């Protein structure tokens, strides 16, 4: 019975940061925060008026995606590589994709998120603002922190995600049906520096995979640990083959 909920819609980042306090819930699209039971925090800070939406391409190989950019915008922006657009489309169906934001997807940190696997493959760097100022953190590190510490740390606001989109990439997945959330999804991105493999469904969060054999995926009703590890091997090999590596 949440009768004490307070809703804020700050219009500047400074105002938003001033509102941050333990227990405050940052609200972006709402597809996670508002789903199921009502917001559990007493204070909601809605980011929609902060002008954090949009995609910039400062260089041919770099995209800066505003935190409140909708997944539907990512899925349709021609500057986004087609493989990443497909992952944004695949992340959620049409009635949620228009609400969910890139920043919210990062904070939710879902272990089965195909879009996160794509962002991680792009060496994503996340810009955060909090009471202690702003800073950048690698997406991989942030996901690790979220997976281990949850949302218990001081609330912060993601303002943007910077992506390296150079090179090419291939995404592979296995699911019960073609649109189902993959049991395991794998993205292999090739750059002059080499190959980077990221995966969903093989750990408590989406991860960079250096050694498939070292994975110890958590089991659930859709896939056992060993089966997920097997999928990881198969899907990585396929993605590499599709990229023409070694041919």
């Amino acid at each position, binding site marked *: 019975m949440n009768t004490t909920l307070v*809703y804020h819609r700050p219009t500047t980042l400074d105002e938003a940061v001033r509102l941050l306090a333990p227990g405050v819930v940052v609200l972006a699209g709402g597809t996670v925060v*508002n789903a199921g039971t009502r917001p559990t925090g007493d204070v909601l800070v809605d980011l929609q008026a902060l002008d954090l939406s949009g995609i910039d391409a400062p260089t041919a190989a770099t995209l800066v995606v505003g935190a409140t950019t909708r997944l539907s915008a990512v899925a349709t922006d021609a500057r986004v590589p087609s493989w990443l657009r497909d992952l944004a489309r695949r992340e959620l*169906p049409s009635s949620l994709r228009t609400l969910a934001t890139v920043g919210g997807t990062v904070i939710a940190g879902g272990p089965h998120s195909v879009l996160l696997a794509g962002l991680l493959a792009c060496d994503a760097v996340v810009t955060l603002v909090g009471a202690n100022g702003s800073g950048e953190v690698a997406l991989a590190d942030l996901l690790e922190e979220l997976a281990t510490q949850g949302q218990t740390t001081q609330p912060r606001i993601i303002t943007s995600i910077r992506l390296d989109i150079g090179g090419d990439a291939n995404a592979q997945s296995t699911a019960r049906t073609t649109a189902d959330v993959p049991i395991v999804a794998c993205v292999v991105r090739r750059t002059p520096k080499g190959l980077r493999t990221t995966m969903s469904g093989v750990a408590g969060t989406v991860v960079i995979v250096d050694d498939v054999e070292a994975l110890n995926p958590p089991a659930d*009703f*859709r*896939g056992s640990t060993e089966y997920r590890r097997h999928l990881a091997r198969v899907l990585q090999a396929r993605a590499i083959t599709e990229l023409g590596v070694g041919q």
Partner: protein
Amino acid sequence: MNVNITLNDVAQNFTVDPADTLLELLRREGCFSVRYGSDSGETGASAILLDGRLASSEVILAAQADGHRVDTVEGLSAKRDDLDPVQAAFVAVGGFQSGYSAGALILATHALLADNPSPTETEIRDALSGVLDRETAYVKAVEAVKRAASVLRGEATEPFRPAILAPLTDGVRPVAYEAGATAPNVSPAIPRLIPSTDVPDMAVVGKPELKVDGVKLARGNPTFADDVELRGMLHAKVLRSPHAHARILDIDDSAAVALPGVHAVKHYKNTPRVLYASGGQSWPNPHPWDQVSFDNKVRHVGDRVAAVAAESPAIAEEACRLIKVTYEVLSFVLDENEAMADGVAVIHDEADAVGVHDASRNLALHIKAQTVSDANIEKAFASAAHVFENTYRVQQVQQTPIEPHVSVAWLDEDERLILRTATQVPFHVRRIVAPLLGLQVKDIRVMKPRVGGGFGAKQEMLIEDIVGHLALATKRPVRLVLDREEEFASSRTRHPQTLTFKTGVDKNGKLVAQQLNVTASTGAYGTHGFTVQNVTGLRGLSSYNCPAKKFDCHVVYTNIPVPGAFRGYGAPQAEFALECHMEDIARSLGREVIDFKRQNWVKVGDKLDIVMFLGERGTLDPADVDPASFPPVMTSGIEECVAQAMRAIGWHRRDDPSWVAPADRPHIRRGIGFAFCMHGTAIPFLDMGGCSIKMNDDGSFNVMSGAADLGTGADTVLGQIAAEVLGVPLDDIIMYTGDTDMTPFDVGAYASSTTYISGSAVKKAADVVRWRIKLRAARLLGVEEPCSIELHDRRAWAPDGRSISLEDIALNSLHTEDHEQIMGTGSHVSHECPPPFAAQFAEIEVDTETGQVTVVKLVMAVDCGVAINPITASGQVEGGMFQALGYAVCEEFAFDETGRMVNAEFGPYWIFRADDAPATEVFLVQTMEDSGPFGAKAVAEIPTDGVAPAVRNALLQATGVAINQIPFTPERVYHALNSRS
């Protein structure tokens, strides 16, 4: 707080609580087209346009919408005859069935076409991906979007009607399959109709009439159970068990009762203990009777503990949290094969349960049937040249209608209890709920408004007693809507079963003995345990001729959520096992599978012997039954079905190694599988429908039927039957159904009975009215023989060509002379149960390295007699196949170590979306079934029967691996393939 929203072009200011969702605000403001399907936004039933973008409104706070534009379908058309092009397109092609999510589908189309006037099919399917539709296969929705796009581009459109195809057979004998022959290229949304020469041409019946409820659904009119607001309404919530099995030692409700805003708390300590069975079935309900409104024991996670009525849902939830329950936690069992083992906890140890076969062994029922004596069964097996035995397992799945269970109860001015409820069985609900509430049947009125899908889940008295108890306790209206997790955990599901078929075959391939042993779980309560498993026996042992048959079924209690009625009703389980078993026998014998099955499947004139030994009126001893009384098959279009569907699927490709193993995709194998399907049409001697029809001043007619349209198109079909008899267009028929005060009795919507039983009642009532019209017309026209009068084109015609309008006849009868309300009633019970037949084919691809099975195409050709409306009939087939597809490849209840369901949301559970749907083709093969209204048989359930075995058989053909357990999830298939290698 105040929010400013431009709602349907009007700038408005609303006062909201910060916790209010946009869904709640919109419904409060009368936008009833925006509907609840879940709390997670997954169903899309609540979708609106937010600044032109499709968005699920239950995951948007009203506060977030401040300053934005919101559009709903209420803003699209001002008048009922002024639909916008998208609404009109959906109505024209039958793009929705129940229409619960019609508004969302229409808005999704608007959002797409605003940006993209010429979308591809992939883009259309992606745009619709956010609106789950459990009733259709999305194929007609996609067609509607294409049609709307054409209209908006200024292009002409053709009337949407079936494609008439020439028959490939003489209707009886098979024809040789012509490899490479192609079926006519027609849009997949259009049913292919193969007419029969013995079906006369009719004016309304057999025509693709628009659904009678299409316009109101497209406009989002308030028509569902929850689309009502009553002054002083209270909101109910149910406290549910966290334990799979526990005794309630005590309940302390004092804190809950003391919470401001709480009006009543009900539980076992303050509710009379009246035993009942919740299944919506004819009186007397089959045993066991093992439920009470609130018990001192819980038998599955999600079982009822207590219920609260309060000023708001939030207060009711908080009150539930304040109820202190002291449990004695007991051990539990989930697997039906372990339920009867020694040492397993007894689930129904109460002393007063009625009709439990052996409670100490958790054996709810032991069902047996056989067509010959045990000695003759053994003799038949001994005589067989080959004996085959296989065991199969089918899982627990749920109907998942997008509209959850909803009931609203209040006392009317006479202090009678009114139940406005989403039910398939209003009359059964009234009869079952009355004693639980201490009322008589006459004290209760059950009103079934529009129902947003049921599929058997609502063939149950599930929550009506709860709102009844609370309304009687508070004297206030009480509303209860189950949330999605409650739907999964506490409504109804399909019975999981373990089935073993044993079959003896002679040296010529003819079946000589067949035995089916089943262990079925009825979960925590018996409800439909008896009848569903009877249908398993019936369907498992009816499809193929065999002189010696035996059925032995243990129906056991377990601590899983309760199985009940689910479209197909025991047949999908049986037919999965049977069609896999027959496939395996054919392969073992080296026989071509269709040829082997054809040799044995029932044909016109063959007797359905096992029918006499099953069901409520079954006979135990074969010696008591005269074989001459076995009902015969009177019509079958199976050969035409097989011929049409084989051609459509391209059956020959399965024998082409380069197709099965494509060189450019080395990890892919392809296969095509077949399943022969036979179902029933209603329950003979038991299912009863009633109808009354009255004539109005203008020559229109009110048809009042006890039937229940769940989105099936029943109202349309029944209206077409009445219109055909009365010689009027469908527009002149006003349907009103499912109201225990206002309509005649009908058992309700189940057992594929509505068209056949309720339709026959409508026809009988219309025949009475027709005769009254003829009598008056003859007098007014000066014709001596009323029989010679004909009705058509809204007029009564004399043999000499003179005529009088029905309006003039009505005015004469009501206002002028020899005053009479022209009206008629009809009741119908059938002594027959004519089986529809179908050929189901599935084309699949399997990834041999991952185990992922992708169903590429489903083709079903159905003999449903005369399809009264081929568009709605084909919609039933499409939607049924899709439910069956989920059964085959992905849907399954999963539990943790405490017995809690871990996938009680649509995402992890997964039902098919528009963007992962395979191609479909539907053929309707006409036969003239004389016992049905205008030749009709059933169509609603047979589409659920064949998909799983067809997919399994395709998988077998593609890989050589037989997998006898569904669903064919990637890991299960991977392990099966891997164990072979």
